[in-house]
């Protein structure tokens, strides 16, 4: 199939449509406004619905409503906008509604800035809203990977009946890359496969087929049962859905951990350092919830590995999961920038050299 040159936001939006999304609700915010812009032109072409909501809060609640009918629904925003959505996201998780939420991360806290950042890792994987819930969370590292993940995101969301979150730093949405766009998936709501969906029950119909979308369980007993059900789903997802990439970690002395765009800078570092005789490697989580703890532990807890350098564009958020995985088995250092400045190859190299010299 022919490659095209696409901007990340256009590609992600098109991939969502090809994966069967027919409802988009959102609100503009940099650096992801190109996603609603693209959707506004494209959704009518495929018989879908684009709606610019009056706010992010309204948009996520529209997602809640549309997802309740079993349709494939998507919303997108950037960090401060995703903060606004958190209540709705928690409701979607509580009501077990499959949907896809895109966070194109920019600088924070608060309004922060409009440059790319990775500051919402905690928000995404440690629960931005209330209650005991998780989102299947993916951190794509290239435009093509974002497309590939989008093509299975709705399937996963529906399999586990939980929202999927894309944690993409702003660069992924803004960069332009050659990509291969998959064919359109022919998706139709099948009430047999989604017996929970509200597809038009009316008085006189079989009461057992009446869908109720709800996240309120008033008495302690039923809330406890509901939560146990959710936790069982999360346990299953933890078991099946971890994704990661090992890049030259087999014989590495120093392993970099990084996600998203930073991992690409790190890959260049690995190759440059190997050319200079330093055995570096990269471990890149692709799913950040569930975090690939075992795979990272396996990559790092070998003789030969002298240390781990975690690199992020934040104050060291994934660092906590990296440390949890390694459990003190090897020294872990952190390097990162705040304020949306991306670490450069030269900076990462110098950090590894410092570790090598035992500093």
């Amino acid at each position, binding site marked *: 199939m022919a490659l095209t040159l696409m*901007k990340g936001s256009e590609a992600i939006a*098109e991939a969502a449509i090809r994966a069967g999304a027919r409802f988009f609700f959102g609100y503009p915010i940099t650096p992801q406004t190109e996603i609603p812009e693209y959707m506004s032109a494209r959704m009518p072409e495929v018989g879908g619905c684009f709606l610019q909501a009056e706010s992010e809060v309204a948009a996520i609640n529209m997602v809640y409503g549309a997802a309740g009918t079993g349709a494939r629904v998507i919303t997108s925003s950037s960090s401060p906008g995703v903060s606004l959505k958190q209540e709705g996201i928690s409701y979607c998780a509580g009501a077990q509604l499959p949907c896809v939420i895109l966070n194109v991360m920019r600088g924070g806290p608060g309004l922060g800035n409009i440059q790319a950042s990775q500051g919402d890792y905690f928000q995404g994987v440690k629960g931005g809203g209330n209650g005991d819930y998780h989102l299947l969370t993916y951190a794509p590292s290239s435009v093509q990977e974002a497309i590939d993940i989008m093509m299975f995101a709705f399937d996963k969301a529906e399999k586990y009946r939980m929202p999927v979150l894309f944690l993409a730093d702003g660069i992924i949405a803004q960069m332009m890359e050659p990509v291969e766009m998959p064919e359109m998936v022919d998706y139709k709501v099948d009430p047999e496969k989604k017996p929970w969906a509200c597809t038009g029950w009316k008085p006189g119909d079989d009461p057992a087929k009446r869908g109720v979308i709800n996240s309120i369980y008033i008495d302690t007993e039923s809330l406890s049962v509901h939560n146990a059900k959710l936790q069982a789903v999360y346990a299953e997802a933890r078991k099946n859905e971890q994704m990661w990439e090992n890049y030259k970690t087999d014989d590495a002395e120093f392993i970099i951990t990084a996600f998203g765009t930073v991992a690409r*800078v790190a890959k260049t570092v690995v190759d440059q350092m190997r050319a200079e005789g330093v055995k570096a490697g990269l471990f890149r989580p692709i799913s950040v919830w569930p975090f690939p703890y075992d795979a990272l532990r396996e990559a790092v807890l070998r003789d030969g590995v002298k240390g781990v350098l975690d690199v992020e564009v934040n104050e060291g958020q994934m660092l906590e999961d990296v440390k949890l995985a390694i459990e003190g088995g090897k020294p872990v250092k952190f390097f990162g920038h705040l304020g949306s400045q991306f670490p*450069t190859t030269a900076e990462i190299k110098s950090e590894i050299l410092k570790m090598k010299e035992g500093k």
Partner: protein
Amino acid sequence: MKKMIVLIGNYGSGKTELALNFAFKAAERGERTELIDLDMVNTFFRLTERGRLARLREIRVVSPNYASSGIESLSVPAEVQSAFAMDWDTVVFDVGGDAVGSTALGRYHQDFMELEPGALEVLNVVNIRRPLAGTVEKIMHLQEEMQIHGRLKITGMINNTNLAQMSSPAELRDGYEMIREVSEKTGVPVAYTSGKKALLDQFLAEGHDPRYIGTPFPIDTYMQRDWDSWVKGLGGPSEQVLFESAGGWGPNERKKWERDSLTAQET
């Protein structure tokens, strides 16, 4: 005679990279060169981020107010007038993408009209690997729209068909075929065919009709980023790290910018 090159085209067609190349080549020839960032649409990855590379070549750079400062509400600086008022050998305009980007040119209509005949080249940069310029009809439609919004007649097209890091001569060849058809239908000539030298040479060796190639224009890439060497499915180390900071707006970037703007004020 003052020469003016105005680069318009669909979003992501490669105008900025070409603007830098046109300006740098003019400066290498010893010409007094001005480079105008007139992209009023795009916030990220813009010419102004490479302003330092231009200034090192003694090229004067004019940027919209607040460009690359993390603010999206750009405004056109009065300084753009220096393109017309001052005595340059070459002025290159890097204009925003699509018709909406071309709108920024309309305000200078009178100034452009007063140039000597033949001094102005308005070039439509075409990359048919971009979905919005992927068919003859789309290219013609956009060409028409950009002329209306920019109040300028397009004098030529540039075949800049590429897939960034994954480009091959096939890109230029497919671009050639499609742009040839556009040229035959609209009468707008193909002024240049551009690409990295090795790819361009391979394409030229295939012996296509020179009327639809125009002047071959080999380019270097200056908009390269630290992460650009890793496209999924592609290996290989980074070609060259050209810039210390990759697109962010950190303290070093700010210092650099302040230093640059001070220098700009001094001149």
